[in-house]
């Protein structure tokens, strides 16, 4: 078919479809990806870690050669595309032959074929018909679907099983291409990002891994989030209750945990982290009158909430300092993490308009705790937690999973289904006796096949014997009847 093409495309085609090219390409993939596991890679490794690991000069060279992000470099992708093309070309090159073999099985073996065949046997028979019938019977029992072949001058029997095995290798190659296709689709149209949503809030904007912001056509709200621990304090489970909102309406709700994401319109939300925002949700206090006995009670205060304690007195949180330190007559916070927390409460009297600063703990110079009509004790602190969500969109993954399943099936057929063919032809041997020539081949697992063949020949032999006996018996009865 390539005969009338000019030599350049033909040469290209031949090179591309040769096993040698395929193997060279695969070796290149192996070497390059091995290099990619040894050299630190950019998107995964932080920039400062890269700088610590390599000297500036080496780093510049590596960056210049594209060796710090091998798996996303255009030339690596190009290499994978070349591998795919090579697989396609090699398959196309070899497929017509296999297809001929598959679609037009060789059913009537001629003399040269019979001579050359490695696995064969001869069984002495009385006449063609009974021999062929015996073979047919045994083939049938072995699940070989025998066919009686009729030529001008000869009859023979052909049986086979698992012919599909001849094409299985194309199934495997096709599945590999399907997986590549899925990967390419995801590389082009897929994205991954991250969003952190504080409890009670919603968001439709994600930060993608390349740093850009993506806005989704819907929003996700975090209704609750938490962490369950084992008895020894190590985390057992992170969970969040998510709600998907479209035009302000909730269209979906789900509690997600680490191995169980929320999926909406092909966008998947994975639980990836959990933490607190450094903001206070609520602080719990025990309150009691400052002087004299009186009932103490529990109250909970949110940062922007004013609580009425009695007809005259109210209290609110003026400040929450997560990790306080006093310096130069000022109260500062060392960090946003809760370390040494301090709360500044303001207790106000409506009548007198007097406001008292109540500090827990009492910081000298700031607290006026003694003049407050109520005493407060902080008992508990609830922070606002956020849920960290990995978000990904992988439209090609279905091709990948389909490819994986097809590949599993294909490999199963390639390795474990043996294409076996058997022929039975009545011929005259060198001594002029009438014999049934039986031959067989298998495309793999030849040693097991040999045993199977011998068993089959034995079966035909005994079948021939039974037939001739019953034939003789029938003959005898017919004689007696005369």
């Amino acid at each position, binding site marked *: 078919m390539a005969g009338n093409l000019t030599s350049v495309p033909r040469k290209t085609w031949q090179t591309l479809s040769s*096993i040698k090219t*395929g*193997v060279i390409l*695969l070796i290149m*993939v*192996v070497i390059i*990806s*091995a290099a*990619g*596991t*040894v050299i630190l*890679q950019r998107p*995964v490794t932080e920039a400062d870690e890269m700088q610590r690991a390599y000297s500036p000069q080496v780093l510049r060279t590596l960056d210049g050669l594209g060796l710090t992000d091998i*798996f996303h470099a255009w030339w690596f992708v190009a290499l994978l595309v070349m591998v795919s093309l090579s697989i396609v070309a090699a398959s196309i090159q070899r497929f017509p032959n296999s297809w001929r073999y598959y679609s037009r099985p060789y059913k009537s073996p001629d003399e040269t074929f019979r001579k050359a065949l490695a696995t064969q046997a001869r069984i002495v028979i009385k006449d063609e018909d009974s021999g062929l019938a015996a073979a047919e019977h045994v083939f049938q029992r072995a699940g070989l679907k025998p066919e009686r072949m009729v030529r001008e001058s000869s009859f023979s029997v052909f049986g086979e099983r698992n012919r599909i095995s001849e094409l299985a290798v194309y199934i495997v190659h096709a599945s590999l291409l399907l997986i590549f296709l899925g*990967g390419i689709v995801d590389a082009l149209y897929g994205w*991954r990002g991250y969003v952190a949503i504080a409890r009670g809030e919603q968001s439709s904007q994600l930060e993608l891994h390349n740093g850009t912001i993506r806005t989704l056509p819907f929003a996700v709200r975090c209704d609750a989030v938490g962490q369950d621990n*084992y008895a*020894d304090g*190590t*985390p*057992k*489970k*992170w969970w969040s209750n998510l709600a998907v909102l479209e035009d302000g309406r909730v269209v979906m709700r789900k509690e997600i*945990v*680490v*191995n*169980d*994401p929320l999926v909406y319109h092909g966008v*998947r939300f*994975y*639980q*990836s982290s959990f933490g607190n925002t450094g903001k206070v949700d609520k602080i719990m206090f025990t309150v009691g009158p400052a002087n004299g006995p009186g009932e103490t009670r529990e109250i909970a205060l949110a940062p922007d909430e004013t609580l009425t304690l009695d007809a005259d007195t109210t209290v609110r949180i003026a400040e929450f300092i997560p990790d306080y330190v006093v310096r130069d007559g000022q109260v500062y916070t060392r960090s946003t993490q809760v370390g040494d927390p301090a709360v500044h409460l303001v207790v106000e009297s409506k009548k007198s308009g007097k406001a008292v600063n109540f500090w827990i703990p009492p910081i000298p110079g700031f607290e006026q705790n003694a003049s407050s009509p109520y005493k407060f004790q902080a008992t508990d602190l609830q922070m606002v937690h956020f849920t960290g969500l*990995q*978000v*990904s969109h*992988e439209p090609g*993954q279905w091709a*990948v*999973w389909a490819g*994986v399943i097809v*590949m*599993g099936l294909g*490999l*199963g057929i390639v*390795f474990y289904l043996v294409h076996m063919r058997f022929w039975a032809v009545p011929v005259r041997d060198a001594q002029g006796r009438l014999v049934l020539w039986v031959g067989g081949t298998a495309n793999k697992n030849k*040693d097991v096949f040999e045993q199977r063949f011998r068993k089959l020949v034995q079966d035909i032999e005994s079948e021939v014997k039974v037939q001739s006996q019953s034939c003789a018996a029938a003959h005898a009865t017919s004689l007696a009847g005369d």
Partner: protein
Amino acid sequence: MARARVEQQPAATGMTLVVMVGLGVAFLLFMAFLNVVKSGNLLNESNLLYAALIFYAGAGTLYLGFGITGIPSYVRFASLSTWAGVLANTGAIAHRWYEAGHPPFASIYEMLLSFVWTLAVLTLIAEKKYGVKVIGTVTMPLAIVGVVLMQLLRTEVHPLVPALQSTWLHVHVTLAMLAYAACALSFALAMMFLIQDKVRTETFLAATSLFGIATYAGVLTRFEKWGGLSVAAWNPEEKSEVFLAKGVRLFVVIPDLGWLMLLVLAAIATPLFLYLIWRKTGNENSIDIANRAVFVSILLQVLALVFFLLRARDGRYGSLDAEGLFPTSLAASPFILSGLVGGIFVSLLYLLLLWRREDLERMLPSAEELDRITYKTISIAFPLLTLMIAAGAYWANRTWGSYWSWDPKETWAAITWLVYAGYLHMRITRGWRGRRAAYFAILGFAVVMFTFFGVTYLLPGLHAYA
């Protein structure tokens, strides 16, 4: 077939070894039993594992005895001992599973538990079904190394971190263990093929030397200035390595051990050097000397192992990255330990080959048969590898939202897959048989070992859990 030939030998009165091994096993079990009676708990995991170790060791000795003497009754008793070991091992796995509430695949300890079990079962299958009787001489020592490593690694049931609570993970790891065990078997078969294929003993000498050089070169990547060897520090209370930051281990330097390792490296490299001289000059003397050098190198290797065991077990050592002295432990350096043990074991196998090659050749199946069984093992391993990668990808997709992120373990799994794919293509389309195929199978297993140990140890990545 092999057996019939063996039985033609003059009837050997080789019960001595069987009796000795039997007595040894009984004695060790009895001692263990006395201890157990004191503590009151008979059938727990560590006792079962200990019993498995004893039985595997007995089996290993008997297989080795069979390898050397060719007395068939050894194999019978070796199989029996292996069966007993598998039973105890199964019990240990079941106990672990029951205690932890999840199949035992979460940590490297649990994976070793499963790996050793698979290896022992495959040994029995190879022996019963394919008649490869001496395979136990290769696989049983591997199993023993595995169990010894397990004794050193942490054994408490650790609760699973959230990312690991998935059925798919168990599927992934089970498939990995099965695939790797099949690869190990194909490697052993390929080696036996090379023996039957009349590869010269001198070539095995060079290979042994090369393996030793690679092992000790690997160990010596930890060589520090002034002859120390840096090993991970160990926190005995928490039974874990000491971390400076997330994923950054603290290393301490054991002084002088580096020099010893360097000396062993030189001793191990000597046979290769002499082999090269022999290739060049054809002087048979140098091979004689090389064989003696192997013997010397074994002694030195044992010395290095003993020193390493002693130094790593007690004492506190300084670190280059932090102030103060820190303890270390054998459990902190499982890979160095297995490297040292593996080196000794490979050298011993070479001596076995050197002294008993004719017996080995008589006892092994024919070269063609070994070639065929190697291929069959790989045709089992390859689909398992494929499914293992697929299950891992599916799990990663459920956990991190990405089925393939090119982390080192993934990439090396893919490389392993490609190497075996190359083997299959060469065999099927190019008709590669025999020696070239065997070398390919050996290469494949080397890559498997690197993926399993090397990547975890040398390259960073997401697979930090193992």
